[in-house]
């Protein structure tokens, strides 16, 4: 009985100590967790600083895309007379002797359902861009700027869009009006049946 009483008396002190210790522990844990949490989940920076600055030389040598306004067109020039022999040598095997025969991608013609440069290419600059980056299929990127201007002139002339004597360069090419231009519309086909 005495033993139990003494034990009972000591108990509140012990509980208070525990309570304080517990509270301190909680505060510490909370504080630590908040700090820890902040360390773990920092807001991402706007910039990480990865990568290296591109040099103007790199940009100039890699940025080969031509825009409809002529942005990106290189110096040089060419007409049908320059383009015709190049076409015969490097293009005719796939596109046909006059560009109408195929077997692959017919390029010339404005009748029927065949989609050609004459009836389905809305911008003349695209002809230059595509030939320069992707043609001829077995050796893309090997034609000189003059050859590409010449081939573009040859194909536009064969499609009766420019005269055989027109010389194309960075100034004249963007001004060529293509027959298909006004038929293209940007379309987002959200469609629901009635």
């Amino acid at each position: 009985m005495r033993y139990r009483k003494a034990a009972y008396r000591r108990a509140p002190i012990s509980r208070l100590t525990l309570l304080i210790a517990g509270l301190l522990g909680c505060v510490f844990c909370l504080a630590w967790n908040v700090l820890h949490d902040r360390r773990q989940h920092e807001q991402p920076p706007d910039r990480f600083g990865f990568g290296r600055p591109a040099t103007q030389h790199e940009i100039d040598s890699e940025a080969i895309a031509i825009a409809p306004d002529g942005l990106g067109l290189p110096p040089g020039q060419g007409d049908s007379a320059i383009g015709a022999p190049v076409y015969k040598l490097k293009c005719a095997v796939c596109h046909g002797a006059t560009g109408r025969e195929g077997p692959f991608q017919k390029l010339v013609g404005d009748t029927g359902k065949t989609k050609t440069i004459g009836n389905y290419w809305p911008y003349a600059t695209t002809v230059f861009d595509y030939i320069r980056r992707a043609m001829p299929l077995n050796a893309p990127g090997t034609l000189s700027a003059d050859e590409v201007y010449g081939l573009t002139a040859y194909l536009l002339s064969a499609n009766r869009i420019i005269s055989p004597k027109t010389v194309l360069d960075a100034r004249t090419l963007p001004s060529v009006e293509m027959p298909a231009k006004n038929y293209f519309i940007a379309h987002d086909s959200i469609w629901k049946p009635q």
Partner: protein
Amino acid sequence: METPIDRRSFLASAATTAGIVLLKTAMGQTIQAAGHPLSAAKDQVLHDPTHTPGPPPSAIGTRSRFETIKLAPSDTSSRTPLQSLYGIITPSDLHFQRHHGGVPTIDPTKYELLIHGMVDRPTVFTLRDLKRYPALSRICFLECSGNYRGNKPELTPQDICGLTSQAEWTGILLSNLFREVGVQPKATWFLAEGGDAAVMTRSIPIHKGWDDAMIAYGQNGEALRPEQGYPARLLLPGWEGNTNVKWIRRIQVTDKPFMTREETSKYTYALKDGKYSQFNFFMDARSIITFPTYPLQIDKGWVEIRGLAWSGRGRIDRVDISTDAGRSWHPANLNGPVLDKAHTRFTYLWNWDGNETEILSRAVDDTGYIQPTLAEITALRGADLGYHLNPITAWYIQRDGQVFFKPPATKKS
């Protein structure tokens, strides 16, 4: 003494027969025996595997010699065997392929991505740089917008729409790089250029770049396959496959589209009024039953109709099934996960009474878009069918259980 090559090619030919019989086993009674008993392949199991130890652990796993699943390659593309896949992920080596200048070999230590144009800080990123940005993985489908064939009854799902596949892609959000280089407020487009022999380019509205566009370097847990753009590609969830430029080497930020060949004379289609529709980015909702399909023959009784549905505009909300040639429609089960812009697996239990009929599926996405019939598409667009065809596909089942694709009518009857 047989050489390994002899043995492999011999097994491959034997397994062609094996495939039919194993399919029968896997599908239970729903498929009738279409082939011969499996004597040829059986003979190749030269020992009882419970009495002879098999090969030890290997450096790389391979498919069972009895599995002959393959892409169907043509001059321009390879089509995924949708009818042979389980679940929603396309194995990386069976992901469809469409290249414009072949598959380039790019050394990842020499790879660089240049971002310039209407940016404050033109920057070059190595692959190592790209991988330092916060990584994320997401599952989404990728579909070529030229994904439709429908001219004869002897077509499989692979033939009809095998130019869609799905992977878990890992990479970084393009918006990380946009912030890094300081894309200027007036920018409205960016040009994405690949490092293949076509140096293929597409113009993309800038908002997609700020939204969910990724530069992906991982596919199904490993590096991208070369056919999918190794070491890094653009990924535009839900948008036509061609815009997801592979082997991406350059991004030029601009305020107008470049009108590249692939967005003018290709990937456009004629409309009814004589105009041509351009920048058709979204892949609209579509579904296809992948079982039972040509060339299978089914038995009367219970058949679990299975298939895939997806939408480039969001989640699949519902797939309806008709087993009476489109007279009545019933909702299929969506076997999760049902993910945003992702192939979703559906099933529908059907008790076939043995009468000839047609079975169809129709996807509805969470924008309310309902997959149309081909007649509805042509009524809207005109008869010059081109890209972005997602018609309801019907399968005709004869009395003998033989299944054929039913080429759809192009005009309303």
